């Protein structure tokens, strides 16, 4: 059974007070993710990636279609606060802007304490302290360099690692990562990518990796979905997509990506 199943998802945004405008941000999107699978959702700006992510995370209601996580329809079968809490333990998000996840008035530790609370653990217990340190070490952060610091004192990479440390505490079954490295310098990006791979290896976590960077998608994923103007126009393994793209849009996209080892003709 797949961990995530998205069926015929559609989202239409309405805007304008007097003259209504409709934007079909996501059109009839279907795909699924198996346990331990990393699936990339690739598309250009405005193609509907974030909208899809927000629906799966239950932040945004779809216009139609269903999202099934672990056998339950997240818009029908989650009714109580307890259900929602369970859901938040199962599906966790890592966002593009590592800044937005932090409150600049609190030390960064808070994001980890919040995770412990979600798990129903007493953040003050000494066991909790161990858990936190353990999670920091597993994302390559030195606890004593991080704990007690404020968001502005950490680099973007460190903040993003901290968000992944949260995943180590919660151990969700599915991570929705929306452009998690696009605001991070190329030279430190690889380290973050490796953390996602490690979670998948050790915890069998499934990951929906949202990116506009085909290189990253090619490198990290088992399956790539190509999104264009709200639709998934093509999907397949990275090799299939790169060496044998079928859709015109994909062909054009792949031709446009600058390559390192060959120069364009």
């Amino acid at each position, binding site marked *: 059974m797949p961990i995530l199943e998205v069926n015929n998802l559609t989202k239409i945004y309405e805007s*304008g*007070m*007097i*003259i209504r405008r409709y934007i079909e941000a996501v059109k009839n999107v279907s795909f699924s993710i198996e346990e331990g699978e990393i699936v990339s959702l690739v598309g250009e700006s*405005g193609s509907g990636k974030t909208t899809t992510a927000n629906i799966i995370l239950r932040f945004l209601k779809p216009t139609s279609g269903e999202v099934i996580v672990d056998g339950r329809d997240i818009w029908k079968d989650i009714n109580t606060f307890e259900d929602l809490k369970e859901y938040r333990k199962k599906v966790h998000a890592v966002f593009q802007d590592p800044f937005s996840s932090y409150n600049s008035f609190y030390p960064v530790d808070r994001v980890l304490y919040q995770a412990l609370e979600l798990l129903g653990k007493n953040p003050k217990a000494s066991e909790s302290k161990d858990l936190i340190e353990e999670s920091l070490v597993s994302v390559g952060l030195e606890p004593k360099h991080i704990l007690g610091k404020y968001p502005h004192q950490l680099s973007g990479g460190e903040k993003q690692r901290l968000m992944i440390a949260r995943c180590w505490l919660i151990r969700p079954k599915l991570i929705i990562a929306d452009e998690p490295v696009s605001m991070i310098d190329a030279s430190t990006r690889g380290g973050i990518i490796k953390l996602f791979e490690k979670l998948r290896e050790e915890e069998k976590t499934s990951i929906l990796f949202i990116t506009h960077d085909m290189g990253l998608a090619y490198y990290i994923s088992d399956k790539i979905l190509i999104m264009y103007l709200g639709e998934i126009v093509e999907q397949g393994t990275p090799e299939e997509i790169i060496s044998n793209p079928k859709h015109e849009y994909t062909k054009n996209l792949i031709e446009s990506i600058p390559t390192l080892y060959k120069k364009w003709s």
Partner: protein
Amino acid sequence: MKGYALRPFLKYVSRKFIFLLVTYFIAITIVFILPRAIPGNPLSTLLRQIFQQGQANPELIRSVHKTLMEEFGLGKPWYEQYIDFITRAFKGDLGTSISSYPKKTLDLIAPVMPWTLILLIPSIITAWIIGNTLGAIAGFKRGSFTDKFTLNFSLIVSQIPYYWLGMLLIFTLSVKLHIFPGQGGYSQGTIPAFTLKFILDMLYHYILPFLSIVISALGGWAIGTRVLVIYELDADYVNFGELLGLKEKTVFSYIFRNSILPQVTGLALSLGGALGGALITEIIFNYPGTGYLLFRALSTLDYPLIQGIFIILIGSVYLANFLVDFVYALIDPRIRLGQSEGS
């Protein structure tokens, strides 16, 4: 204007209009409530007047009281008074004054309104132009002597309360130096008429109240524009323009144009405040405008007159606000053509 641009523009204007209509409704509701919250019975003042004129017949007083209560609807429950008030207000009937019974409120307001407008509009616009220009020059020459001088001058001037500045002007230029008259809209004894003599006399009386509004309002504009200009100095188009060799003069004109645009909306927003200031100015200078009438209405608790003045004043501020915004939409292409959606 091209067809594709029209839609967002119409949308913008109609949205704005509805917004103003709704807030206007709320505003006149507040106008309805406020005078009723002041303790005291408006009729008692009127009755005392009748009483003092020697017609002390209790029978008569009671019957006058009864007729007046009915006439002004004061005996009815508040919600009936309210509905009555709103429907009449929309029909343009602002009721009858209590203190100058039986004169219609509108007839009292109409003759004083032009005085207020003549005082208000030129002074606000003058302050806006001078203030913005000073502020822009100061901001462009950030850190220079001109900048420091303008900033300090503006800070001081904008902190002086309207009435204080008004009294200062009266004291120095009128009482001590006898340069300008400090009282009234025209010389006592003359009758308003369209003659050169009267107009010159009026202008002579006009200078001090005009100056007091201009001076106290321009500081705020200068400070605001200075900040907008400084903010704009680092804009990407300024850097690019300089690196293409643009002259300082051209760069200044770019910056001036872009930082003045938000100030046009600021002008709309400030109208209310300027109006309040003008009311005070009128009272200090004994100027025959709406402020003076309102002062009288308040001291006699003349509900209909207070309400009438406020309805007209708020209405004109809203109208001006709408027009200014409309003008803004026309002069800023980003709004006129509808800045494209997306980022």
